[in-house]
């Protein structure tokens, strides 16, 4: 359903050259929910953009079963909403492009906005909303679109803990209900383990897949019990260690630097 083979991406601009992705190979089965974690600047966004076909890989291949049914939630939520459209129209527009009948559109938009807790703001413009609310509009847009593949780039970064928990459950129920394939980028290790069937861990730059983990928690999860499960704790510790390792391997003690390989020619 989603196949990435030997993906490599080098950014070039002027004399600066950054190897964002060195070589990535993995597959995501149809209807799978995979979480992606990795240090800041390791190339997660780049990977998602390549999968969505927004960025040309330097080499390697990406195959997506059904490109038409692909939706994406961008990390830069503030810039991905149309400032000239109201909240409702922002969510509605992709549906209109998909030629969804009017009545159905109305229903989808209302449902999605209610699900993310934004019922009542339909007529506001995005710039009249708080950061977290903007991010939720972007999520609602993706949800209403009923995609077959959903790419989410740190979608819950700007919302509070409680809302975040609600949205996590929303994503899981959506996934179970529609059988959608999801790639979910997050910084929150707990979130990755709680949500995913599988967690892909990326190394720091030059980026390869550091490790892969199958989350063998029961399919029915809830915030209270799942997170209290000792298996959950074991899994999150495993992910944490791998990420620590990824950092150390790059040889920088602080762990925050060095993910950038800049080659002046």
């Amino acid at each position, binding site marked *: 359903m989603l196949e990435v083979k030997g993906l490599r991406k080098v950014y*070039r*601009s*002027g004399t600066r050259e950054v190897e964002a992705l060195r070589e990535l190979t993995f597959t995501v089965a149809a209807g799978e929910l995979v979480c992606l974690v990795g240090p800041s600047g390791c190339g997660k966004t780049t990977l998602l953009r390549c999968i969505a076909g927004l960025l040309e890989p330097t080499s390697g291949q990406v195959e997506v079963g059904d490109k038409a049914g692909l939706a994406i939630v961008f990390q830069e939520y503030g810039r991905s909403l149309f400032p000239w459209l109201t909240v409702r129209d922002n969510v509605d527009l992709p549906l209109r492009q998909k030629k969804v009948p009017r009545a159905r559109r109305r229903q989808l938009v209302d449902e999605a906005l209610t699900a993310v807790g934004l019922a009542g703001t339909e007529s506001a413009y995005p710039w009249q909303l708080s950061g977290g609310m903007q991010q939720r509009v972007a999520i609602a847009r993706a949800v209403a679109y009923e995609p077959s593949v959903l790419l989410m780039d740190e979608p819950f970064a700007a919302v509070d803990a409680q809302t975040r928990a609600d949205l996590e459950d929303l994503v899981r129920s959506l996934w179970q209900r529609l059988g959608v394939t999801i790639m979910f980028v997050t910084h929150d290790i707990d979130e990755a383990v709680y949500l995913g069937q599988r967690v892909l861990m990326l190394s720091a730059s030059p980026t390869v897949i550091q490790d892969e983990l199958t989350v063998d928690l029961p399919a029915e999860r809830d915030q209270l019990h799942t997170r209290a499960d000792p298996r959950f704790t074991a899994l999150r510790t495993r992910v944490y260690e791998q990420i620590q390792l990824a950092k150390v391997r790059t040889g920088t003690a602080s762990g925050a630097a060095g993910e950038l390989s800049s080659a002046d020619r």
Partner: protein
Amino acid sequence: MTAAERGAPRTALLGLSGLAGLLLLVEVLPRAGIVSDSYLPPASRILAALGREAATGPFWVAVGDTLLAWAIGLAIAVVAGVTVGIVIGAVPVLRALTASTVEFLRPIPSVALIPLAVLLYGSDLGSTLLLVVYAAFWQVLVQVLYGVADVDPVAADTARSFRFSSWGRIRYVLWPTALPYVFTGVRLAASVALVLAVTTELVIGAPGLGAVIAVAQTSGAIPTMYALIVVTGLLGVTINVAARATERHFLSWHQSVRGEASA
């Protein structure tokens, strides 16, 4: 070699092919009898006349005169337009106070001011400058005003929160934001200035290409007239190439330029 460097020759090639297409059209139209060749001579004859003109000294003096008037006029208009634009744009009261006057003065055509110019300066460089500056100034001013209004509120707040001085705000926030608009304004003004320089010379006989065009016109020397028009056009193209190059240099950070580099 970076993408931008690779792109440059190809861009030039595409541009040249566009010009070549125009030449071909002008060659074919009269030859096919679609227009009479005594009123629109084929390109080859125009170019021949251009060659003859280019071999004479007075022609180059005229080109020099026009370019001088153009350059001085444009420089004055740009400096004045940018300064006034930023001052007015940065101070809302001034903007509100001057808006009506600006809108009143702007549509007054330079050509209607010809008697005034002649009155003050005869047919000297001064006349040309007056009209050139008058016309080009508004182009820059309006663009700068729109540019200053386009400042990202978050960027403006950032500057305010870090207590930037007024000058710091202008220099580091207003100016870079307005810069793309200023470039459009300068490119607009550059050609308006050229148009006005030539027109003034044409009408009041100030020395320059326009005066030569007037002579060719009244003499019925059609190919020569077109040749001279071609010269003004080519000046315009050259000026634009220069403007584009500076723009690429100064706006490398801007969405419009960086998009192309990565493509």
